[in-house]
């Protein structure tokens, strides 16, 4: 098999990749899996079907999903504006987009909590005018996750938009398509695989996010408590089996969801030639 390859070094590169992957990903994760084997299955079920745990899973995955959808929408618009138009301060915006990558997430969480709490200036405004509370509610978690995940969408969609052949748009226009039809039938289908990647990254980041969320969430059990926080709480109570059981479940669900998104991506790409 290796003789017929054009690029040399198949064996060493694959060996290195597997070794590296084992060291940083597979070994820690399998430790988690093995650790959970120490649990008796009934006990395991007991832990993860606990009302508070189920509620935390619901909060974590629904807020991550909501945030990923909203971030995909706005991230797409940001990427569109950054690639399609030139305006004063464009470089400045480019730099700002990446800030959430670099900023300690706790800082983001504290800042967001300060503004969106009922006495904060945005929180107060929303409360008085729209009777809307963001801080210390699941909505607050969504806000924090959007903040964290928008750059993932922008940076995956942007290069694809940049490379998009504008002659295709012109061709569609010359064939009588309206602006909306050009967007819906020509631009969007070509951007969609990249948008899906951005969505998957946002979602994955959102499910695992801890630092920014705990400050704004209020962390009320059953309402705004996320799974990572629950794991920490269990650890702090020296409930190792409990923490392991929840972590394993989270791992499996996340893995299945990402696998699903990957399959979807594969299907979309195949369909678009």
């Amino acid at each position, binding site marked *: 098999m290796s003789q017929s390859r054009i690029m040399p070094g198949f064996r060493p590169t694959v060996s290195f990749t597997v070794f590296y992957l084992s060291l940083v990903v597979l070994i820690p994760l399998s430790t988690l899996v093995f650790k959970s084997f120490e649990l008796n299955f009934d006990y395991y079920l007991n832990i993860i079907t606990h009302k508070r745990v189920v509620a935390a899973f619901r909060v974590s995955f629904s807020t991550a999903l909501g945030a990923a959808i909203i971030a995909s929408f706005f991230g797409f618009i940001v990427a569109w504006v950054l690639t399609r138009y030139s305006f004063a301060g464009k470089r400045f915006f480019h730099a700002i987009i990446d800030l959430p990558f670099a900023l300690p997430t706790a800082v983001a969480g504290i800042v967001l909590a300060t503004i969106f709490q009922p006495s904060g200036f945005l929180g107060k405004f929303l409360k008085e005018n729209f009777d809307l509370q963001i801080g210390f509610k699941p909505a607050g978690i969504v806000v924090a996750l959007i903040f964290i995940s928008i750059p993932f969408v922008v940076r995956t969609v942007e290069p694809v938009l940049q490379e998009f052949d504008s002659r*295709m748009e012109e061709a*569609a*226009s*010359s*064939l*009588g*398509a309206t602006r909306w039809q050009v967007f819906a039938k020509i631009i969007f289908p*070509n951007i969609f695989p990249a948008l899906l990647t951005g969505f998957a990254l946002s979602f994955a980041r959102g499910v695992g996010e801890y630092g920014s969320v705990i400050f704004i969430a209020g962390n009320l059990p059953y309402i705004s408590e996320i799974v990572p926080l629950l794991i920490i709480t269990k650890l702090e109570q020296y409930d190792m089996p409990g923490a392991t059981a929840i972590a394993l479940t989270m791992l499996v669900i996340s893995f299945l969801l990402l696998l699903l998104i990957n399959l979807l991506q594969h299907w979309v790409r195949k369909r678009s*030639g």
Partner: protein
Amino acid sequence: MSILLSNISKNFGQFAALHDIDLEIPEGELVALLGPSGCGKTTLLRIIAGLEQADKGKIFLDGDDKTDLHVSQRGIGFVFQHYALFRHMTVFDNVAFGMRVKDKKLRPSETEIAKKTHALLELVQFDWLHNRFPDQLSGGQRQRIGLARALAVEPSVLLLDEPFGALDASVRKDLRQWLRNLHHELNITSIFVTHDQEEAMEVASQVVVLNKGRIKQQGSPAEIYDYPANEFVSKFIGQTNEFTLEHYTVDWFKHIGLPISAESKIAHVRPHDIEIVKTANNDTPITLKDWQHLGALIWIELTKNLPNGKPKLVYVEMPNEQFKRLQLNRGDKVDLKVRHAHWFN
């Protein structure tokens, strides 16, 4: 449908791409916009299509003012140099696109669309490719699909931007013939842009020569070739020898039969309008430098030392047979006879 352009001007910043273009194209013609790169020919085509807006001037299609109409409303078909096929759609969907985006009231039924799409693919001889994606096709195939897609909306005018520019020579040759035959069949008023004069002469029924944003000449290929209106056209279309009249070249010009007039100073002579004569006695010798075989024709390079000390190169073209009869060798001294010349100021 006839096309009338009046007073079209276009600037890109400081650069004036088009100056006051007036052009009339009668119905059913196949017109080539010919010129060197940067002459404004593509810009002019895009303005006719509505993909670009003119700064000044009006566009009439069939007598109707279409200047301010959006490209999607103009009823034109546009074919791109790099095909611009929709890469996420099959060949079939590409061709059907124009019919599917029509207003609900005007849109044909899906069965009618399918029937027409297959008919168009049949026309470009590629119905068997209808399930493929553009990335799976060769350049020549893609360009034919591009044309079928443009024809699907029954355009009144077909505009082609360097349609063969990205193809290799042999495919280009085939497609030129094919486009001309297709035009005979469909008779849609068509304009194509090219920088290749051979292509323009071969395909078009009318040629418009542009340079630096101005029309230099418009006419049939024969007119443009036989009666070039100015130096630029004469040089750009086909090969030409340039003879500049100076006090020290008068005698030589008289000797080789170039008629001298008072007002013109520059003579252009086509290589096939010069005859080579073998003489033993020659006062104003010209030397045979080299020759190349071009198949049926021979391309001959001759050189003459002018009194100002500079050598003058002259190119002559003649049939292979005739060249053999002359039995010339490199370095032979010969005499020339000019049969026909164009004089410019």
